[in-house]
């Protein structure tokens, strides 16, 4: 579905944030992107969400080079993408229900479709009682689940999550992990960045898991667990 060929990214001319990255990812894959802080995980996600351009190499989606995307294609691509941000990035002026509804509103779903889809994810992530709460008044674990709910409510093809468990305790982290496993079982390609390799050991073996290990901008390991 998505493939990278000899991708480089440099911010300042002297140092590469990403160096010669090549791999491809397919639907239903659950990929852990591991590596120490500063390895280039966030940078890779910024390329995947078109927030940054590659310095060289090719990034393509369904064999179409993403650097050739026009505005319309870019918007369409982003609508099939779900992003879970490390710092959640919820809109504090909207309640939980409306936060989760944002991607659907952008894609002009009808009111009925929105309330049906939002209610079902609220239910699924155990957030139903918080529908009317505001982000500042819920716990960190709940915010994380809202962020994930918002990233999947529009049924994306690819979900990217940057350090999604960084702010969570072990119990919450495990419950988030099982959510990701369910999603990939349903056909969503899921990519999770984490600097915590211990975390991988806690995954149950019901789905196949792939690990891509980055260090100093290079892929050091690409293996199935």
């Amino acid at each position: 579905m998505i493939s990278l060929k000899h991708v480089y990214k440099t911010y300042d001319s002297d140092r590469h944030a990403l160096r010669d990255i090549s791999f491809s990812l397919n639907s239903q894959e659950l990929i852990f992107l591991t590596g120490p802080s500063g390895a280039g995980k966030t940078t890779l996600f910024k390329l995947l969400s078109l927030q940054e351009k590659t310095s060289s190499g090719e990034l393509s989606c369904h064999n179409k080079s993403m650097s050739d995307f026009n505005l319309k294609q870019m918007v369409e691509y982003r609508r099939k993408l779900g992003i879970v941000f490390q710092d959640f990035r919820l809109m504090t002026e909207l309640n939980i229900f409306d936060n989760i509804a944002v991607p659907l509103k952008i894609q002009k779903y009808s009111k009925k479709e929105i309330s049906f889809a939002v209610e079902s994810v609220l239910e699924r992530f155990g957030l139903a009682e918080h529908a009317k709460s505001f982000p500042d008044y819920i716990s960190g674990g709940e915010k994380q689940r809202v962020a994930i709910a918002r990233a999947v409510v529009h049924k994306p093809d690819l979900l990217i999550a940057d350090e999604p468990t960084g702010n969570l305790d072990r119990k919450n982290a495990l419950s988030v992990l099982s959510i990701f496993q369910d999603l990939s079982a349903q056909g969503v390609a899921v990519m999770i960045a984490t600097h915590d390799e211990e975390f991988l050991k806690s995954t149950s073996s019901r789905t196949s898991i792939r690990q891509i290990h980055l260090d100093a901008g290079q892929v050091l390991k690409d293996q199935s667990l």
Partner: protein
Amino acid sequence: MKIIYIIFMSLCVGILSSVLLVKQNTSIIFGDASDLYTVNISVDKSQSPEKIESILQEIKNIDKSQIKKVTLISSQELIADVEKVLPNYSSGLFEKEELEQILNPAVEVQLSAEANSASIIEKMKMITGINQVVFSGDWVEKFKSIFTAANHILDTIFILFFIILSFLITVLIRNLLISTKESISLQALMGATPQQSFFKPFSQIMIATFISYIIGMAMTFLIGAVIRQKISENTDLGFIHDRMSFLNQTSLSLIAVGLIFNLVISYGLSFMYIRKEFYKND
């Protein structure tokens, strides 16, 4: 924060529309060029109608292209004018014949604005049977340079405040975009089009601009109404009161065009900014 912008924008709009109001009314009050270039000639008394007719012809012949209109005002007409002004009790004070003896028939000549008035007036004075030549444009000529200077100042004020207004609107949209940057970038990442992403800040700028225009115009209307009120209290200025008008269609269209121009500029600027910031790929 937005309130301060609205106050300053209203002031700008108030100044802009006041300038338009003043410009529009100066031409109405002081009349147009044809009003200004009038020569009043009085003819010697007790001339035969044939002689007067030939004087009129001689005036016309001085310069056919530059003399627009020649009108004879007979003694009878002048008497009628005088009687209109004088109170009733004065009627019968003079015999009509006596008056005709006193009043000279008059001729009103209208010159075109480009006419060489001095030489034409010289030639008029040389026609026999003409008693006196008075050029109403004489005083106008003296004030004309001041008048044009004042007009230039008004134009400059207009342009200056239009630029300030555009600048204020641009700064306002910039601040709104920056303060909503987080939500704009989030929406862009969720697949919102640039128009969708800046819908909220742009609708805010639209509302703020409309409010400012309405307040500014209301200010001008109020000032106009106060001036009119003051003028109507002074009977000598009655003619100004009659001629003075509020913003006419041209001024209103100019203001509307300015409003649309400013909104188009801020729409374009926000579109460019957002595309550059959040749709880098393209």
